[in-house]
């Protein structure tokens, strides 16, 4: 039951206005959810009503009525869904544009996926590697929670700043799924794909590989450690002088 | 089929579908044994069994078809539908070829075309051979429709000779290019070239084998005319496909900058 309420809550409001592009994603989900519930009820209520009302009662309704169709009503239930479908497609299109277009001034990361781990390269050349066995406890053969994972394998991310990821792969197809931001893009050998996200609140967030890639697909994860910008710059180290302009910036507001 | 003419309850049977069906399993097993398990003995054994089942099955099937029952006339329609499927198979290779041709237009023209380009005179000759064979099979079809068994056999044979000549010339051309260093793994042009022409050639081979089956059974062909029509139609398809294949593999492949 708790989960049902959570589902309603999820579809009732944007829970995570602090996370992008999740906020746009939630807009679309909300609209879809209520449309779907409405359509379900519009179909289910009459059918259950008919199921009960027109059940076979000996002597009363031995045979069904001889009705073969009704053109007018059939046109109605062709045209109305067409309109709904156009609306849903266009609403999703509008949000999609925002989900795909990173705001100006984003931090750019180059991600290279491999079997099974990630190489994340910062603009100053600093690289973070996460291998599948670094997110798990070898003895229990089980995932670690982020707080138990070595900070050295986490990718630091400045809070309140858009981050643009360019992804490719060294071997097979993987997918860079920024879990809390609800955005993913496959990393394909021979191609560079892109996505963007932004976390306004510091914290630790999972990244999972979401395209099947073999034995350790399910452990091909890493953690984004979102920290205030100053701390991020400290972590990024010596070369912060290369990007002085960004040090002073306040958290950027993304257009809703 | 079995029990033809009896008046007791009929359970229609035919022995021949089973061996042909299972031959696909044995041939697959042979391929797996060769490529994955590296068991040459199993590969040869299973391949042999598969081919034997296939040959016996098809021979028996054709014989049964020509000897029993009457011509339902549906075979032609069956082949028409089947050709739709074939078109899509060719389509997949074309898709790969054209995608690469468009996205890699630069390197393609600069590096991938073999020295001296393609031998277009030979292509013209190959085309001429195939088109002539389209004519000869059309003659064969007409002969049988007019009940001229001798003509039917002669034109069938002529078609088979032309088809075989096409294959031999084509193989010679492949060897020649391969020796020049233009192989199936060189780049997407090599890949696309050999796959398109190779898959097409395999269809020519199937067509010739169809004609062989018809020729062997030609003695009983007079009241079973549909197979001749069907084989002829299939052959026209193979000839028509050649236009696109040759146009793509030779001309689109080796000319122009896009």
């Amino acid at each position, binding site marked *: 039951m708790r989960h049902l309420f959570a589902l309603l809550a999820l579809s009732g409001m944007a829970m995570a206005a602090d996370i992008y592009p999740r906020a746009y994603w939630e807009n679309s989900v909300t609209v879809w959810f209520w449309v779907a519930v409405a359509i379900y009820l519009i179909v289910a209520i009459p059918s259950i009503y008919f199921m009960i009302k027109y059940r*076979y009662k000996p002597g009363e309704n031995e045979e069904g009525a001889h009705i073969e169709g009704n053109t007018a009503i059939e046109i109605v239930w062709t045209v109305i869904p067409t309109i709904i479908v156009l609306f849903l497609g266009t609403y999703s299109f509008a949000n999609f544009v925002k989900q795909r277009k990173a705001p100006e001034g984003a931090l750019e990361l180059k991600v290279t996926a491999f079997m099974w781990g990630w190489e994340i390269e910062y603009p100053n050349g600093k690289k973070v590697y996460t291998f599948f066995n670094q997110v798990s406890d070898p003895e229990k053969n089980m995932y670690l929670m982020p707080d138990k994972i070595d900070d050295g394998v986490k990718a630091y991310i400045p809070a309140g700043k858009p981050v643009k990821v360019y992804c490719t792969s060294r071997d097979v197809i993987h997918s860079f799924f920024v879990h809390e931001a609800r955005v*993913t893009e496959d990393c394909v050998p021979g191609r560079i794909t892109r996505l963007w996200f932004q976390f306004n609140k510091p914290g630790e967030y999972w990244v999972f590989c979401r395209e099947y890639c073999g034995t350790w697909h399910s452990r091909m994860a890493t953690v984004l450690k979102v920290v205030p910008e100053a701390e991020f710059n400290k972590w990024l180290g010596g070369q912060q002088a290369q990007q002085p302009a960004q040090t002073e910036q306040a958290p950027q507001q993304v257009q809703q | 089929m079995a029990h033809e003419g009896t*008046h007791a309850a009929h359970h229609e*049977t035919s022995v021949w579908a089973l061996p042909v069906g299972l031959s696909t399993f044995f041939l697959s097993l042979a391929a797996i044994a060769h490529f*994955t398990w590296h068991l040459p003995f199993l590969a040869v054994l299973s391949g042999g069994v598969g081919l034997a089942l296939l040959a016996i099955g098809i021979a028996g099937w054709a014989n049964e078809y020509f000897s029993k029952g009457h011509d339902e006339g549906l075979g032609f329609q069956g082949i028409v539908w089947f050709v739709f499927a074939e078109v899509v198979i060719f389509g997949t290779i074309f898709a790969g070829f054209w995608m690469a041709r468009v996205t890699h237009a630069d390197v393609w023209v600069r590096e991938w075309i073999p020295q001296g380009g393609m031998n277009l005179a030979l292509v013209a000759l190959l085309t001429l051979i195939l088109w002539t064979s389209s004519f000869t099979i059309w003659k064969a079809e007409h002969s049988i429709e007019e009940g001229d068994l001798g003509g039917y056999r002669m034109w069938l044979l002529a078609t088979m000779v032309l088809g075989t000549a096409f294959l031999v010339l084509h193989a010679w051309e492949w060897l020649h290019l391969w020796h020049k260093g233009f192989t199936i793994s060189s780049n997407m042009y090599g890949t696309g070239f*050999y796959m398109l022409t190779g898959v097409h050639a395999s269809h020519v081979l199937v067509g010739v084998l169809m004609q062989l089956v018809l020729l062997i059974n030609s003695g009983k062909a007079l009241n079973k005319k549909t197979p001749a029509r069907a084989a002829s139609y299939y052959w026209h398809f193979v000839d028509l496909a050649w236009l696109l294949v040759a146009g793509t593999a030779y001309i689109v492949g080796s000319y122009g900058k896009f």
Partner: protein
Amino acid sequence: MAVAHAPTTGTWYGATLKEWIFTTDHKKIGMLYFITSLVFFIVAGIFGLIIRFEQTVPGIQLPGLFGQEGTDLYNYILTGHGAVMLLWWAVNVWMGGFANFLVPLMIGARDVAFPRLNAFSYWSFFGASLLVLLTLIPGNWIKMLWTGYAPYSMNDNAGPTSLYVLIVLLYSISSTGGSVNMITTIVSMRAKGIGWTKLNLFVHAIMAASLIQLFGVPSLMGSVILLFTDKYLGTNFYNPMLGGDPLLYQHLLWFYSHPVVYVMILPAFGVFSEVISTMSRKPIFGYISMALAIYAIAFVGFETWVHHMFVSGVPDWLRVLFSYTTLFVGVPTGIKIFNWVATLHRASIRYNTPMLYTFGGILMFLIGGLTGIPNAMVSIDLGISDSLFIVGHFHYVLGMALTFGAFSGIYYWYPKVTGRMYSEGLGKLSFWLMLIGANIMFFFQMYMGMANGMPRRYPDYPPIPEWVQLMQIQTVGALIMTVAILLNLINWFKSLKGPKAPDNPWGSPSLEWSMTTTPVGPNNFKKFPVEVPEDWHPYAYYKGYHAHV
């Protein structure tokens, strides 16, 4: 082959072993297909239970065997579950089993157009089944999942590529033969007087599905043939270094593998239509639009494949375009749903097991279809692609709508095929258990994908308490489902000795009921060639046909 004065003695199945093995009769071949499908369904279902076992708690439970990790075993099991459920159960229970048995009976034909080709199709399918069994041998586990994406499927980590390719090829050969056969049969072998507007909707569904198979399967064949040549003969189709493109594989795969979902669901729709009309004693509402909607779905189905590649790196405009085309499938599908509901209006509904499974199937399809919509909305798909939401979506349509449809059909035609009545009480019990179990299982699967963003194909996941709890609820549902399916199997077996059924227990004007004995005789009809009166229609219930049960 066609015998004008067919005797009516005997049953279709009362033949010697030799006659079974060499049979070219559509009913026996249909039954061979059906049994193969059912056996593989049970195997794949047990695989599904192993998946549940692994996911119920975080960490890796499956043992590492034969030098492979536990996750490798999981990946193999998941590959088997997906591929077998889709190709052996969802496609072939219809295209092999139901279609073969029923289509000639429904159109008044003595057999399909090419009986020997039909037998050939079955035996190559049988060969494919043997190849599937070979994967059980350690070292031959295929771990590339049913989609077999290149370039992973060429990687040695993925298992024997050649085996995967040949399984798919034999399946394709069999399917191509089968669809050529079905199309020719429906086009050319209808009995005199049965025009296109007098075909059962089930026959229309098989016609559309066969067309999809005919145009789609070769694309699948192409995708795996190129995989084969890339791996073993050195071609470059999927090799980006020398001009190839891994996405070509996905385009070719989905060009078939999207439309194929309609091969799976349209025949289920066909069964829903037959059962609803029969059990309501009322012609189907809007017959013409129902038939047109079937072909519209099949046609639009070929224009939507990129929706499986929304996050694969294809250009943004392509995603938006295919988002719209995909959403449009909802319109003809909606027409079907609304027409079914309208058929119930002023009906006389008999509640028996086939009818319950049909109602359940329709209402669950509605959930499955409506949860297909967010996947098609490209904005939402960015967040849920390759998550358990997708898995939940397709289990609603496959594990429920389709499977309920197949079960409904099995109960509905059970008397005609076996000559006996099934047990109604057991059937109804199994329905309610199945409905409850499946909803518990698949609702929470779907929920986890949307609310928790749980990725799919994960044997292991972080031990977040809420995730663990959601996984455990699903397992409970799966166990209830298992009991339900077992009850069905028991019912079908035990009822082989059940009470004898009359020739037309449901009082249906459709040919397979009204013109044959029960069980069907070896030569199909009481009188052949079949003749139907001018005003005959398969749904003409008002013409004085009466139900016996």
